[in-house]
C-alpha cells in the first residue's frame, strides 16, 4: 500500500493543475481576508469557496486523474498486488494531495487570520469535503469506462449536491410547510455532505441567532459536542460508502 501511495502522491504533487489549484486557493483566501472589512466577513466569503469550488475541483480533477491513470492501474493489476491496494492507493494519493493543497491554500490563511474554533471547523469541513468529493469521483469512475461519460457523471453528482438537492429540499419545505420540519431538516442535512458542512460552519459562526426556533433546534443539535462528532461521523460515512461501492466495481473491472 505505502509504496504505491508514494508514487501516486509524487505524481499528483507534480501535476500542474494541483499546483495551480493550491495557488488559486491561497490567492483567494489571502485576498478575501485582506479585502473584506473584517475577518468574520472573510470567513463568510471563504464559506462559498469551500462549498462550491473545492467540491467541484476535487470531483473533476479526481475523475480525470483516475481515467488518465488507466495505464498505471493496468500495469499494477498484472503485478502481484491486491486490487484493493491499488484502488485505495489511488484514492489515498488523491485525497492526501488535494487535502494538502487545501491545507496550504485555505488552512494556513485561516489559521493566520482567524485561528479559533470557527476557523478550525471551517478547515476540518473543507478537508472532509475534499476527501468526500474524491470518493464521489471514484464512484463516478466506477460507473463507466468511458472518460467523457465519467466526467459527465462527476459533474452531475457535484451539481446534484451543490444545487439540485437544495432545490428539492426547498420544494419539500413548501409542500410540507404546515408541519414542524426543524428536526426533519437536521436529518435531511445528513443526506448531502455539502449541506452538512455548511450548516456546521454557519452554526459555528453563530448565524443561528437569526433564525429563531429553527436556529435553536439546529444549534441544540449541531452546537453540542456530540452533534459535532455525529456530523463529522456523517461526513466520514460520505467518504467510506462511495469508496466501498467504487472498490466493488473496480474489483470486477476488466482491464
Amino acid at each position, binding site marked *: 500500500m505505502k509504496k504505491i501511495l508514494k508514487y501516486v502522491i509524487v*505524481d499528483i504533487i507534480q501535476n500542474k493543475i494541483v499546483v495551480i489549484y493550491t495557488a488559486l486557493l491561497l490567492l483567494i483566501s489571502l485576498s478575501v481576508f485582506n479585502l473584506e472589512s473584517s475577518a468574520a466577513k472573510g470567513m463568510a466569503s471563504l464559506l462559498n469557496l469551500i462549498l462550491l469550488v473545492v467540491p467541484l475541483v476535487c470531483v473533476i480533477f479526481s475523475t480525470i486523474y483516475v481515467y488518465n491513470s488507466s495505464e498505471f492501474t493496468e*500495469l499494477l493489476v498484472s*503485478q502481484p*498486488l491486491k486490487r484493493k491496494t491499488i484502488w485505495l492507493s489511488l484514492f489515498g494519493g488523491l485525497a492526501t494531495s488535494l487535502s494538502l493543497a487545501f491545507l496550504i491554500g485555505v488552512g494556513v490563511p485561516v489559521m493566520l487570520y482567524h485561528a479559533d474554533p470557527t476557523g478550525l471547523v471551517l478547515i476540518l469541513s473543507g478537508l472532509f469535503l475534499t476527501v468526500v468529493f474524491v470518493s464521489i469521483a471514484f464512484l463516478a469512475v466506477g460507473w463507466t469506462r468511458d472518460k467523457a461519460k465519467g466526467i459527465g457523471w462527476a459533474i452531475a453528482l457535484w451539481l446534484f449536491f451543490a444545487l439540485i438537492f437544495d432545490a428539492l429540499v426547498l420544494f419539500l419545505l413548501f409542500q410540507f410547510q404546515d408541519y414542524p420540519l426543524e428536526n426533519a431538516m437536521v436529518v435531511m442535512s445528513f443526506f448531502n455532505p455539502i449541506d452538512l458542512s455548511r450548516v456546521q460552519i454557519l452554526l459555528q459562526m453563530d448565524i443561528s441567532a437569526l433564525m429563531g426556533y429553527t436556529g435553536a433546534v439546529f444549534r441544540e443539535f449541531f452546537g453540542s459536542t456530540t452533534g459535532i462528532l455525529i456530523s463529522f461521523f456523517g461526513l466520514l460515512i460520505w467518504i467510506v460508502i462511495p469508496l466501498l461501492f467504487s472498490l466493488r466495481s473496480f474489483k470486477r473491472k476488466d482491464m
Partner: protein
Amino acid sequence: MIELKNISKRFGRLQVLDNVNTTFREGECIALLGPNGCGKTTMIKTILGMVVPDSGQILFNGQKVNNDWKYRSQIGYMPQIGRYPENMTIAHIIEMMKDIRKEGGVVPDDELIKRFGLDTMMDKKMRTLSGGTTQKVSAALAFMFKPSVLILDEPTAGLDPVSSETLKERIIREKDKGKLILITSHILSELDDMVTKVIYMNEGNFLFERPLAELKEITGEEKLSRAVAKIMGNKSIGRPSNQMQPV
C-alpha cells in the same frame, strides 16, 4: 502448473471465451495462435487476473486464484501494447516494479536492459519513447524478476530484428531452464525454434491443441506456419485434438 477449468467470458454480446479447459505444464512453451479477436489476449489477461471470468476457475499450482494475488509474483507478463504512466521515466518504472516485487527476494536480472541499450536512456519519460522502445521496457520487466511463468503477448511486434533475436534467444534460454512460457504471435516463423505445443483459438474456443512434434508429424510439414495452414485446410485433423487432451 496452470489449469483453466470451464472458463467463460463475455464482453457484452460477444462471447470471448467459451468454456475453455486446458492445462499448462512446466517446461512447456506454448504458442497461442488464432485470428484477431479470437480471445487470446483475453485468456492471457484472465490468467493474470486482469480480466475476471464470468464463470470457471483458474488453478495455479493447484490453488484457486480467484481472489488471490500472490501467484502473480511468479509470472512475468509482457503485454501486447505496454501502457505506462506517461510522466514516469524508465528508471522510475523499473524502480517501482522492483519496489513492488522485492518481497520475492530475487536479485533483479538486468540483462535485457543492457542488451536492449535501455540503460543509456533511463531518464527518458515513457511518453517520449517509441513503440519499439516501450516494448523493450515491457520485455525487460517481464524477465527481470526471474518468474517461473512467462506470458508474452506478441513479444516481437514492433521490435527491430536485432532486438527481436535477442529476445528470442532469451525466451529459448528460459524454456531450457524448464519454465512455462505462453506466447501469442502472428509471426509463426519465429516460433519454430522454441514452441513445444500449439493452441489454435477461434471465437473463444480451442480449435486444436497439440504438441508441435505431433502437429508436424500429422501434417508432414517442417515449418509451423505451413503445418498450421495445412491443418486449417483440413479440419478433420484438427477436430479430434480438441477433446483429446486429458485434463
